[in-house]
């Protein structure tokens, strides 16, 4: 009897913890998934308020600062480009013509407001989203960037 009770308690606690974790997991996944978009697709596919990872290359000659000091640049996949605004300093390896991922909440409009900019960590690495954007637009020519 005692042994069975004990097993029941263990199972009950395990189920309790599991359902708590499952609930939190589902709740967490609902609001925190970031969808990859390429510059060609973003305005057609992204919904307002959705977390988006915009991938591609930093368009040559597009880097500037606006009046408020925010960084302005364009992300391109060769076929189309999208303007991005980011308040703050970009990562060290943020450069013209290099792969970049801009993360932010999408709102319809000309400019994508990014909360975070990812560039590369080293010279030979290309962010996966940047590569994917170039592949989709047919501009990808192997691992050399």
């Amino acid at each position, binding site marked *: 009897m005692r042994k069975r009770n004990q097993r029941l308690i263990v199972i009950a606690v395990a189920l309790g913890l599991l359902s708590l*974790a499952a609930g939190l997991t589902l709740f967490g996944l609902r609001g925190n998934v970031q969808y990859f978009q390429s510059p060609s697709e973003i305005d057609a596919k992204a919904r307002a308020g959705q977390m988006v990872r915009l991938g591609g290359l930093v368009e040559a000659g597009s880097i500037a600062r606006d009046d408020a000091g925010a960084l302005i640049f364009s992300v391109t996949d060769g076929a189309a480009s999208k303007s991005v605004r980011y308040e703050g300093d970009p990562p060290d390896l943020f450069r013209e013509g290099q792969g970049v991922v801009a993360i932010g909440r999408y709102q319809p409009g000309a400019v994508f407001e990014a909360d975070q900019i990812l560039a590369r960590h080293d010279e030979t690495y290309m962010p996966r989203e940047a590569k994917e954007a170039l592949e989709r637009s047919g501009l990808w020519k192997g691992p050399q960037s």
Partner: protein
Amino acid sequence: MIGEAGAFLSILALVLVAAQGVLGLLGHARPGLAAAAAACAQAALACLALAFAALVSLFLSSDFSFAVVANNSHTAKPLIYKFAGTWGNHEGSMLLWCLVSALFGALLTWFRGGLSHGLWSRAVGVQGLVTLGALVYTLALSSPFARLDPVPYQGGDLNPLLQDPALALHPPLLYLGYVGLSAPFSLALAALMEGETNTAWAKALRPWTLVAWSSLTGGIALGSYWAYYELGWGGWWFWDPVENASFMPWLAACALLHSTIVTERRGSLASWTILLAIIGFALALLGTFLVRSGALTSVHAFAVDPARGTAVLVLFSLAVGIGLTLFAWRAPTLMRPAGFAAVSRESFLVLNNLGLAIAAGTVLIGTLYPLLIEAVTGELISVGPPFFDISFSPLMAALLLAMPIAPLMAWRKGALSAALRWTWPAGLAAGAAVGLGLFAVGGGFWVGLGLGVGVWCLLGALAYVWKRWGQGGPRTFARFLALPLAVWAMTAAHAGVGVFTLGAVIDTAFKLERAERLHPGDSIDFAGRSVRLVEVVEAEGPNYIATRARLEVSYQGTTALAAPERRFYPGANQPTTEVAILPTLTSDFYIALGEAAQTPRGTAFTIRFYRHPFVRLIFWGAALMALGGALAIVALALRRRREAMGAGFFAAPAPAAAPAE
């Protein structure tokens, strides 16, 4: 010549570990074969150590006729980073993986403990096969001894972000942790094959688990500390796939550490312990796969190769497949009646295990969910850090509430009231911390809860020392010093969790940040400090050019100089940011130099200032945890020696006097 010798030695090691595997598995009934397996394991370690030394010497002499040296080194690089560069790349780090695995193989032969012959022989055999898998992969797909033709005049340099003391140590520690989990895995598979688990087996499991867990703790903490000061804004954890890859094995090792205690002391939970050992090593292999394949987007991703990822996945499937199949087949024969009450030390340790396993599960889901969605819908997604804050943190907070109580419980049948007798002061202090977080500093619910949990864990850990000190006599200083090392080990680790929690909560909730564009001569006031940009100069390092700012920071009547830099490494064609940190007792004042811009007044520099309150507690907490693990290893070794001496003692003629305890 040295390189060819290295390649030859690693192929020799491959043959030796294959022999170790076969002989070890066959040797469970034949001691002669087992002894041969042990000899193979030791010889393999010698071969791999020499092969690794050969690779180190190639790096030290900048021999660019080897591809791995040419791609990752540079003649102008400081000597220490030429040395550390040996494992700062894929090929070298895989050879290190093999070396560590062979090291554990040899250690298993030297430190047999009280293992029965069959268990010991088979564990050595399985460990040999693990090393074999890693070596086949290394030599076939990522040989560090591949030559390069034509030979370049200069190397491509090590990624400058990695040219850093913390990151020079980070990979070896992490690998000691990852690969350290292969020893419990080998012992678990040996137990399944022998159909035998006993106290000696559980005892043998603990030191390896402790080594792995402590190394992982140290490795992760170093990586986190590095991210804090090297990436330029003071973030120390990002819930990035590469970080999760090391965190999941850590959680599993932590659970394993606690379940082996139950198996050793009470004989129960044996099959669960075995399962955890298998899962722990599986997660370590999964971690290697995630880091090496580039299947997931990571801010820490370095150059990756999908073919290598596939091969690691094959190794992973082999280890997990064989492990779990054996488990399903043999575990039912290991079932033991578990006799303990619903409230007891055992039940709390079961709670710990359930909680840690489920926590690892949520991290796993968050990490692999993008891969699943991509496979099903073809859509490319990522899971953001808020997911982990929502799913992982509440679970962990609930788990930590139980942590201080568990050690105060009696085995078999305990009472909550007895535990509360010791922990009520900690409970009161935690309540006060919750109130402080909610009302005094205005942090909100989660900050209040976090502070409460931190204080509860820290003081609750000390309550255990207080209880043990008073056990069986007055609390004299002599009796304080005589407390067993094992008590301090656990207290340090548990208190470390509390210290870490406090640091993490306070820094996350109360850090301050400000970015300002300053001309030389300009001043600003921030976080109670007055800062003046004195000048910005160009400086030259051994293999980089630096733009260095000099700032005067006045704080409470004293003025300190800070010199944050932006460096450019021509060899790697890559810039880095070197921040300046002025620590005080309660916070770090953190300064990062940004880019230059031309204004009508001349050249201005964007400088970012941060105040990170109590951020050092995060790293001190982790250091305490690792120290706890190290102390526990020493305590185990001392106990083993005492037991061995005790055995000899009773066999010897009657002693003249009782030994001093």
